[in-house]
């Protein structure tokens, strides 16, 4: 997986969130035998190489009133999927954008994007906007609104070391939908 044992310990120590104290990196470092400076340097390195996508306040959209989400799927010619995928994935209301295999003839779609909104109309409006902005008028697509949430528990990235309790945490819907 490309992480050193020390970085795995660090990831396990921060994946559930930083302690909300004045010197959080000093506290994290103390748990795993790193100085505050070393902890910050390693986190910056993980940010730089993309292991950590972002460091910040992780909000739960559902709890904030963003009750609608639509998995919007596109049937994009193979030679355009990378280009259009990057374009769609760079739009700020798109929270996930992945290429996945088609299953012909039943499932022709090869690009998946997740679009959130406060309600159905807002989501549909965003999709119209996306079609305009990314030049998708000629692309076959379907919009799959969620109806019920049976489970939304994100998998932990790395198991915590044995001395730390593993706490199941609810993650925001923008995460982990691999």
């Amino acid at each position, binding site marked *: 997986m490309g992480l050193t044992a020390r970085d795995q310990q660090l990831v396990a120590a921060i994946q559930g969130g930083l302690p909300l104290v004045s010197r959080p990196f000093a506290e994290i470092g103390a748990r795993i035998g790193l100085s505050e400076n070393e902890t910050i340097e390693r986190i910056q390195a993980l940010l730089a190489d993309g292991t950590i996508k972002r*460091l910040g306040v992780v909000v739960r959209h559902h*709890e904030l009133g963003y009750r609608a989400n639509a998995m919007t799927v596109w049937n994009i010619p193979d030679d355009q999927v990378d280009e259009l995928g990057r374009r769609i994935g760079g739009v700020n209301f798109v929270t996930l954008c992945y290429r996945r295999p088609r299953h012909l003839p039943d499932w022709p779609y090869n690009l998946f994007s997740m679009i959130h909104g406060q309600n159905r109309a807002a989501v549909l409006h965003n999709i119209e906007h996306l079609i305009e902005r990314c030049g998708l008028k000629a692309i076959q697509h379907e919009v799959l609104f969620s109806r019920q949430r049976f489970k939304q528990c994100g998998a932990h990235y790395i198991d915590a070391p044995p001395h730390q309790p593993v706490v199941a945490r609810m993650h925001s819907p923008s995460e982990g939908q691999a």
Partner: protein
Amino acid sequence: MNTLEKRLLNDFQRNLPPSPTPFADMAGELGVTEEEVISGLRTLTERGVVSRVGPVFRPQRCGVSSLVAMTVPEARLEAVAELVNAFPGVNHNYEREHRLNLWFVVTANTQEHLQALLQHIEQQTGLAILPLPMQAEYHIDLGFPLQWD
């Protein structure tokens, strides 16, 4: 939601300063005290609006996973969803408006383990599954701009 809470939620989704005192730095930007930032974030976490203050990892650096879709007869939907949820490594299980109406993610340590899990799910539910593993990721995670009424 007060003004400070709105800004805590919106302004720091991807730019928590990785300095020794990130909350004091945020306080400086917001024109409040470090204590107000820390207690504000604690309150938002306790209310469940904030999942955590910390990292969002790039998916699939370790372990393997697949999105899975199934067509489940309406009458069996709750029962099948419950059955699927009982498998280890199943998360993000949603009913969606489509002929393929049940969508979830299965994660495992190895490809073999993942394939075995998918087979078990098919056997136990008696329903065909459509595995849709990620092949490429295009999303640049900039956080999510919030709108307030």
